[in-house]
């Protein structure tokens, strides 16, 4: 049974929530406390899976509580349920909260958000991954994209399309934007994975808050001239563009782009964490999918697909994307998955690698189980020539 801790300074809110979630008592163990201090005390006694907290509270406020929980209990999912949406509050909440739900919210939205957090923990049960991702002080944003975003937000004539073009250059920014757009605050969580749609949905106030929160959390030291993840960002972009071209259905193209862009977010986190050495090692191992994951498992105890999948799921992106990322080195799983994007995204990654290493037979990089799929086989020639054109 999952344990959920709800914090709000208004007893009335807590009583209301208790009544609202009464039927969930069979699957969730719920605790309701009225202050940050009480929440920390409760957490010290027993582990909880999910924290849902108000932002504005006397004494320790929501942002402070979330920050402490991030340090002390990084595996816990951190959700905010707030009636206050001032930019200043959002700037403080965005770096520490994985999902922000606006008051008043419907029972279904609250439950589904909690469920998504729990499903992330089910999908990637590795406690090390949960602790690492949950404890991240900062997502691995691309500095040049953040600078461009801040610049664009300062312009008066900026359009959502301008913002979308900047955001979709950076996997971490894309993750944040899609996550905010998929928040229950927007009522119908359609699970769209189009950056442009997401930017339009969340609006400039939230984007400004996002840009400000990233600025406020910028690493203090000057960025190295060649960030360890630099070539991973380039590769992510390359495979994302390729994936978009591989998908004939226009309705699925944006999702293909986002999926391929976020596919190796785990690697980017690892590269930022372990520096150039990891990136170097990755390049050596790039020849074989299995060996990369093997190397990671031996060195860290977890793999980048796990990391990426947990990141995406914890930040409330649709579960199908988290699954795809978790299994993107498991072609057999992808071949049997109902997600139509598994094969093209996998192929985009494989062909990008093949082009980078100038492999003589690029299509050989695609696992036979994918290659032989009836939906894939006729497109292989086209895909190869698209990849060659892009390279």
């Amino acid at each position: 049974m999952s344990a959920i801790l709800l914090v709000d300074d208004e007893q009335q809110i807590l009583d209301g929530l208790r009544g609202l979630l009464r039927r969930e008592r069979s699957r969730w163990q719920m605790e309701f406390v009225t202050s940050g201090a009480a929440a920390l005390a409760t957490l010290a006694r027993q582990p909880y899976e999910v924290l849902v907290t108000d932002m504005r509270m006397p004494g320790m406020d929501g942002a402070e509580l979330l920050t402490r929980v991030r340090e002390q209990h990084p595996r816990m999912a951190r959700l905010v349920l707030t009636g206050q949406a001032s930019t200043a509050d959002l700037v403080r909440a965005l770096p520490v909260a994985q999902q922000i739900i606006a008051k008043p919210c419907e029972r279904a939205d609250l439950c589904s958000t909690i469920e998504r957090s729990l499903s992330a923990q089910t999908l990637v049960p590795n406690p090390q991954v949960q602790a690492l991702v949950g404890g991240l002080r900062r997502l691995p944003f691309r500095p040049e994209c953040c600078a461009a975003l801040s610049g664009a937000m300062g312009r008066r004539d900026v359009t959502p399309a301008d913002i979308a073009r900047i955001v979709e250059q950076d996997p971490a920014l894309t993750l944040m934007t899609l996550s905010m757009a998929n928040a229950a605050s927007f009522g119908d969580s359609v699970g769209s994975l189009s950056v442009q749609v997401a930017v339009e949905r969340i609006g400039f106030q939230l984007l400004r808050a996002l840009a400000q929160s990233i600025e406020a959390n910028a690493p203090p030291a000057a960025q190295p001239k060649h960030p360890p993840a630099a070539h991973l960002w380039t590769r992510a972009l390359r495979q994302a563009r390729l994936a978009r071209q591989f998908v004939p259905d226009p309705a699925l193209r944006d999702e293909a782009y986002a999926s391929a862009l976020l596919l190796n977010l785990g690697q980017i986190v690892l590269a930022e964490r372990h520096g150039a050495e990891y990136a170097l090692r990755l390049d050596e191992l790039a020849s074989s999918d299995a060996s990369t994951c093997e190397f990671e498992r031996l060195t860290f105890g977890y793999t980048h697909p796990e990391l990426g999948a947990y990141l995406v799921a914890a930040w409330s992106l649709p579960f199908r994307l988290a699954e795809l990322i978790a299994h993107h080195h498991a072609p057999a799983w992808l071949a049997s998955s109902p997600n139509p994007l598994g094969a093209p995204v996998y192929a985009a990654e494989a062909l990008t690698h093949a082009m980078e290493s100038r492999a003589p037979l690029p299509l050989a990089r695609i696992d036979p189980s994918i290659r032989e799929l009836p939906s894939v086989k006729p497109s292989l020639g086209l895909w190869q020539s698209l990849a060659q054109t892009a390279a």
Partner: protein
Amino acid sequence: MNPSGLKSSAAIALCIAATLVIVVGLAATGLLGMNRFEAATDEISEDRVPRLVLISRWEISLLQSARHTRNVLLLDDPKAVQDELTMIAAERQRRIGYMLRLSSMESSAAGRAKLDQVLKAREVYVAPEDEFIALAQAGSLAAAKRKLLESTRPTQLAYVAALDSYLDFQMAQIADAKTDVFATYGVSCERIYLLATAAITVLFLFALWLRAILTQRVTERRETEQRLVASERLESMGRLAAGVAHEINTPVQYVNDSLYFVREGVDELLGLMKSPRGAQAPTAPDTNLTELQQQLPEALHRADEGLSRIAAIVRSMKEYAHPDDGPMTPADINHGILTTLTIGTHEYKYVADVETHLGPLPPVMCHSGLVNQVILNLVINAAHAIGDVMKSTHRRGLIVIRTFVEGDQAVISVGDNGGGISEAIRDRIFEPFFTTKEVGRGTGQGLTIARNVVVRLHGGTVTFQTQPGHGTTFFVRLPIAGKGAQVQAAAA
């Protein structure tokens, strides 16, 4: 400098440069034209006119000489005749001077030909005159007179005719020169007119351009100002709306939740009622009658309480946002303060308690909405001052609001036990955009607006007492009878 500023300073530079070019061009053309004009007039005045004068004097001298000759004819006294003869000789000497000067001046062939004609006529005239003078001097006056009557008259006339012709020639020359002068003058005038027209056109265009740019700048500045004011108003409204939304969202959340629970609970109860009395198979496995019995009334009570809370907030909001476009109206300041405190609860409730000591106040003539905003701004400032101190002490602060009457003024004081205002910035707190608050917390307009509203619109005062480390109290004094009344009273 902004682009339009750059544009306009470039325009000004261009305009000055163009004006300079035009002035220099005008001056040069004018000078050139004037030079030619001057040369032409000089030719007339220093060359033609002296010749004309000399010829005229020559002719006059000849006529004088003719007079003296006639006198000789009429006189018989040898002494008088002798005098006349001396005069005639003198006139001739004078004419010789003219002749020499003219022949030195005359350079053109035509002029010289005319002069030669005159000299020929003179030769013809001079010979009999010489004989006449010789006879007269010899004393044979009668013979001289005869000689004179015989010969001098026609030669004299021919001489005069030659001189006249020479004079005419000179006159014609002058007329030509005059035409030339006027032609030159006309051309240069035309040029000057053209240039001046061009210059004026260019300057006019520049002026138009400058005006357009300046208008644009002014419009831009006005727009910026309007935007600032509007955004300030919007921000304060937005801030308030966000705050009020928060205040409303909270009860809405639990009213909704409670009603959801009530619906579920009632469904379960109805299910139980439908099933056979005493049956042990409730519709929902976790239906707990005791729990429902206890919690359903609680939930209904909670929903009821939440709805009254929402109603109170909405009512306060309506009263707070009293439209202020009309004239001042008598308002209950104390009621306004209570309304404002309801609206602004979220601004202070996390950091401070509010104590109100509202004395009896007569209705005050004011724009009540604006006065409410001033009170809210002061309360927010007090809350922020306390919040800053609370970061280190973690102790809740106290905001004390008092109202009382002082003479013909209503006084509102808002005091806090925050950190006070440091000596260094006391003079600056009313300046627009002056703020010590971090970005996103204040625009630095609150006190400026407060002062504008109180001083300019209501003829009141805003003052403060502060003690660093102990807190600050702001005093707003409003004339009870309104601004106009006070002015009238002062006039009377």
